[in-house]
């Protein structure tokens, strides 16, 4: 099976960590800060032994000095559940004429694989939800290499078709994604349904991150001459001349993107735009990396 992550990107992933602002760590040992205490590496306090404490948690050196049992407590670092939501509506199949084998969905698959890799490395659980009009496809959250392979298998078979699912079909999302989980949305964010879903998740105390994905043609509009533009989801067509349409489109599209960014900011959704000719790890770097390291390409 073909590796979704290019080798260069994979090497650069080592500098990145998935972090959540809301992770509280109630289950298991992980990398994320928590307010509850327990076993762990980072020392927190000593407390008196109580029946039921594990013998191995007793600090035997302190017992030797003081002849009393103390239990060494550490700050608990808890794992996180990262949910990768991939929009697989037909608009995601769009690609650039200059690079026809690299569609928006291909980039989304690669990004999803990257995120899975990050989560796997730091022991977090991760799951996949594919959003498509004919029904969701779901890989329940889990951890370990087998979970990653399961997810890659699902991604490889994925094809973009149809529109964005309606609200009624989104119930499994709410069933599976628990509060304070990390949600990463990979979509073009053209559909209002996507934005609504993100806003609702964010309002329900999920940590939502968005990677709006654009093609180069949407950013630059490099069309000259006559074209028949077709919306892949509605099938609508618009004949027009590239040069005549360019200025108006770029202005309106730019305004729409700014409005989207403002909307996401207002909802507390962190976002990093990705254009298909950019390095794959750039949006991840913007979201998870240190600020100054983010912009190099």
């Amino acid at each position, binding site marked *: 099976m073909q590796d979704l992550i290019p080798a260069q990107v994979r090497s650069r992933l080592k500098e990145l960590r998935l972090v959540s602002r809301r992770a509280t760590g109630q289950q298991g040992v992980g990398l994320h800060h928590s307010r509850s205490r327990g076993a762990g590496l980072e020392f927190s306090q000593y407390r008196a032994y109580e029946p039921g404490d594990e013998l191995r948690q007793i600090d035997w050196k302190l017992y030797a000095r003081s002849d009393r049992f103390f239990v060494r407590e550490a700050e608990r670092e808890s794992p996180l559940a990262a949910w990768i939501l991939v929009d697989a509506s037909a608009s995601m199949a769009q690609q650039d004429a200059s690079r026809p084998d690299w569609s928006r969905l291909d980039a989304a698959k690669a990004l999803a694989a990257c995120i899975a890799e990050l989560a796997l490395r730091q022991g977090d659980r991760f799951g996949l939800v594919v959003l498509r009009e004919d029904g969701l496809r779901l890989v329940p959250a889990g951890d370990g290499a087998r979970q990653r392979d399961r997810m890659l298998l699902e991604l490889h078979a994925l094809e973009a078709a149809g529109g964005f699912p309606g609200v009624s079909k989104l119930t499994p999302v709410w069933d599976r994604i628990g509060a304070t989980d990390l949600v990463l949305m990979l979509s073009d964010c053209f559909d209002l349904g996507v934005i609504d879903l993100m806003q609702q998740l964010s309002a329900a105390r999920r940590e939502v991150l968005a990677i709006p994905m654009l093609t180069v043609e949407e950013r630059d509009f490099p069309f000259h001459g006559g074209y028949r533009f077709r919306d*892949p989801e509605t099938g609508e067509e*618009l004949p*027009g001349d590239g040069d005549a349409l360019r200025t108006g489109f770029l202005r309106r599209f730019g305004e729409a993107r700014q409005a989207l960014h403002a909307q996401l900011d207002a909802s507390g959704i962190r976002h990093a735009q990705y254009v298909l000719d950019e390095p794959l790890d750039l949006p991840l770097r913007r979201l998870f990396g240190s600020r100054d390291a983010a912009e190099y390409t």
Partner: protein
Amino acid sequence: MDLTLLAPAALAALAALLVPLLIHLARRSEQRPTDFAALRWLRQKPKPRHRLRFDEWPLLLLRLLLLTLLALWLARPMLDGSASQAPWVAVVPGVDPAVAREAITEADARLHWLATDSPELDQPTPTGMQPIASLLRQLDAELPTDVPLTVLVPEVLQGVDAQRPRLSRAVQWRVLPGTVPVPEPTSPAAVPRLAVRHAPERKDALRYLRAAASAWQPAPKDSAEPVAPDLSTATVDEPLDSDVRWLAWLAPGALPAAIEDWISGGGIALLDSDTTFESNAARIVLWRDELGQPLVEGAAHGKGRVLRLTRALTPAEMPQLMEPDFPRQLRALFDTPPPAPTRVAANHYSPTLGGETYPQSPRDLRPWLALLIVLTLLIERWLATRRRRGAAP
């Protein structure tokens, strides 16, 4: 200067201009289907679709230019009056070039030798005798009518006609010191031998020819004896000597091929009236009797000439045989005329007015147009086949 078209109907070829226009226009209506998810931001203000637009303006213009040039080429454009108006100075060989230069004060004057092909004055002096009168008339006819013509001549002219040239314009005729080479005077040549080839039945005619040939010989001063004629007579079977130039062929029937070749090689033959000889050359009556009836017709044949008697050489048919004038007439038939005098004092030979004017031949622009067309074609091909080019026409 004005442009004329010899074949203006060919401008109909300009209709071909529509072809590149259509080529560059037709592709516009072809619309490539493209998936574009951000359609709703594209649709806000629909543009009018039916606006005439053309692809690749430079290439289109170049193609239009190419077709226009081609149509113009077909229409055969001519440029009138493009010749220079600078005064022309013709210097007759014999005048010292330095003297000629001093004599001319106009700065823009064109100085040329009056010689074949009109070489410039910087060229060495043309040698050989120049037909001055002929060259003058040619020059007058070829120069535009308003170009002043000055002719510098030496004191004596050589190679002129028997009359003063009549030119279309007033010529400034200036006599300068200078000489022309005097040709060697040609001495009258000795009378060539007349060879006679005759059939037996024409034997009686020989006596008249012999008498005439005898009369051609210069008479000796001291004796009254008749001079022996320089005449060789033989039957038709006898081949000709190599030095024979004049021949009298007195035999009926076809002329042998050997004699015909000899005439073509430069011989002059007097043919019997019964000899059959076909020639394409025009016949001229050279000798008529008192009533105007032709006696001898002449025609050129190759380098030589054929003289044909129209009657038999008998006194009954041709009483002129008996006249004292006959030897002179016969000789005149064979003789080439002596050259006319061509030498004249220059100041008596100034041209007169009243000659005809000739329209100037306009300059044909087609070679230059062809060059331009080839250049345009090369540029067009380069533009159309260069690598960085869209998939347009």
